[in-house]
């Protein structure tokens, strides 16, 4: 029996199909829908959609991942629920939105870009991450436009997208984010610039290893150290023994910091740029009397504090912006806090779980820190905020500057904070 070309081609195609199937099988792990009945797959899709939306917090991303592993049937179901404009994605929740681009469906990708342009869509961060993780040729300008977004998660994702697309032409735009209000965006920009050959950007990461700042008791500086240490280890190939869980002034860390700086300077080839104030580790430790933390999926995040001893407004995290206030103003605000918060008795929490949050903190005359928390999901809740906190919020807002400013933390601060407050707790 002689060799026949047709049989040869058949064997080649069979081999290719088999290896492609194996590769796909390994990517899909245990959720390969092949061999399952249509009804069984449909039931799984509904189950995972529900768990990704309302399951326990630790389970939601896993359920969303299993959906993506179900492939085309899950994509079709999500597309039908999302609708052409993507309005249905709101109800599917952030974890499903985060995996939408993984299906590789052009139609769904278009929907994600559409919702990303809708400033009232609550899951813009997850949508941007989904798109960035799967960035496609021809999307450079779309990601570039996201670098100026008011939601830090969108800016961060845009950097990831540009990295995947190797958009080195945008180095200047990326470099501008070394002055970002958000520390994780600055760190991502620094890592990307180093990956593109600008080792001097590591200076920003080395500085973050020195951060010790807190927002009340939240150890934001320590978290920045962990993030910076992880990135620097990736970039430099060594952590030099630096322990981000310990203060940077600990003896072992001081030595490690020196070694890291030497390695980073070597990579920077002698360039060691001066840091803008926003990127410097804070050296002053100013006490806090009153705090208002706002996190709105739609309107952004604000970390505001008022200091009684120095009559200061402190805006942001890390090396925060300091705004002198009229003498005695914070003492009056404190007295108002005592009065309004007394009306709340022992109640400390309002609303239901969700991504939107406002938290009032107050150090009372006895030095005790009290916290009052409102949270909600993506849907607006008419009068979530109790009257006492409404009054307090209005007073605090009045103390904020509202003029345009070159400092993005202070630019029209009152208007932006008011919008965030209204997005979370309702009208003021």
């Amino acid at each position, binding site marked *: 029996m002689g060799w026949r070309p047709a049989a040869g081609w058949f064997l080649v195609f069979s081999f290719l199909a088999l290896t492609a199937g194996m590769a796909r099988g390994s990517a899909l792990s245990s959720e390969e829908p092949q061999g399952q009945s249509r009804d069984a797959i449909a039931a799984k899709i509904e*189950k995972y959609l529900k*768990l990704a939306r309302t*399951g*326990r*917090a*630790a*389970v*939601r*991303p*896993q*359920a969303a991942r299993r959906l993506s592993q179900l492939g085309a049937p899950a994509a079709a179901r999500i597309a039908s629920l999302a609708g052409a404009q993507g309005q249905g994605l709101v109800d599917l929740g952030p*974890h499903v939105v985060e995996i939408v681009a993984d299906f590789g469906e052009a139609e769904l990708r278009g929907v994600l870009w559409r919702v990303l342009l809708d400033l009232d869509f609550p899951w813009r961060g997850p949508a941007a991450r989904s798109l960035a993780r799967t960035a496609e040729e021809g999307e450079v300008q779309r990601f570039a436009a996201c670098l100026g977004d008011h939601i830090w*998660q969108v800016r961060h994702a845009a950097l990831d997208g540009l990295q995947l697309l190797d958009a080195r032409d945008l180095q200047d735009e990326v470099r501008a984010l070394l002055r970002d209000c958000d520390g994780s965006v600055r760190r991502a920009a620094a890592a990307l610039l180093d990956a593109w050959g600008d080792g001097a950007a590591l200076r920003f990461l080395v500085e973050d290893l020195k951060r010790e700042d807190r927002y009340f*008791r*939240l*150890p934001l500086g*320590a*978290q920045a150290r*962990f993030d910076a240490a*992880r990135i620097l280890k990736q970039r430099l190939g060594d952590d030099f023994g630096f322990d*981000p*869980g310990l203060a940077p002034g600990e003896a072992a860390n001081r030595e490690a910091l020196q070694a890291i700086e030497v390695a980073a300077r070597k990579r920077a080839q002698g360039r060691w740029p001066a840091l803008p104030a926003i990127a410097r580790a804070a050296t002053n430790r100013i006490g806090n009397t009153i705090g208002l933390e706002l*996190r709105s999926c739609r309107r952004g995040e604000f970390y505001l504090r008022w200091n009684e001893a120095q009559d200061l407004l402190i805006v942001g995290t890390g090396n925060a912006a300091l705004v002198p206030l009229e003498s005695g103003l914070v003492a009056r605000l404190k007295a108002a806090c005592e009065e309004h918060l007394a009306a709340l008795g022992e109640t*400390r*929490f309002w609303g239901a*779980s*969700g*991504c939107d*949050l406002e*938290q009032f903190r107050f150090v009372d005359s006895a030095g005790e820190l*009290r*916290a*009052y*928390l409102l*949270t909600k999901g993506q849907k607006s809740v008419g009068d979530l905020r109790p009257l006492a906190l409404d009054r307090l919020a209005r007073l605090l807002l009045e103390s904020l500057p509202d003029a345009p400013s070159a400092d993005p933390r202070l630019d029209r601060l009152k208007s932006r904070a008011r919008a965030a407050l209204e997005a979370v707790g309702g009208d003021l």
Partner: protein
Amino acid sequence: MVKTQLLHACGLLGLVLCSSGLAPEVHEVSMLRLNNIEFEVGDELPDWVLALDGETVQLSGYMQSETLEGESWFDLTNDSCGCGTSKLQHFVRVIIEDGTTTFTPSELELEGVFSAGEEFDEDEFIESIFRLTIDSL
């Protein structure tokens, strides 16, 4: 003076109990350290975490904002929002032996028996990798 002597005596007693193995050694563990381990599903937990398995541990953190009232467990997170929290290492499942949950946004300082390792639910989803069993809230 009497009070100081009493405190010293208590400390000495604690030392004796501890060294004799009657009182457990308490490990103060940072939530940040737990949150920042590098872990993906299927990975081995770091040795230092595994070494805490079965040990008495002190942890400070916040009830995740989705905590249900009247449950015998809740998830402890590093900040009171927990909204960006989606990785397994960002949660410590706290199991209350005696009592149930009442949500509070205040920081909690807890002491209990730590357990490490993947724990699955009936659908084979990992529910937790860190757990802390406490007597009561």
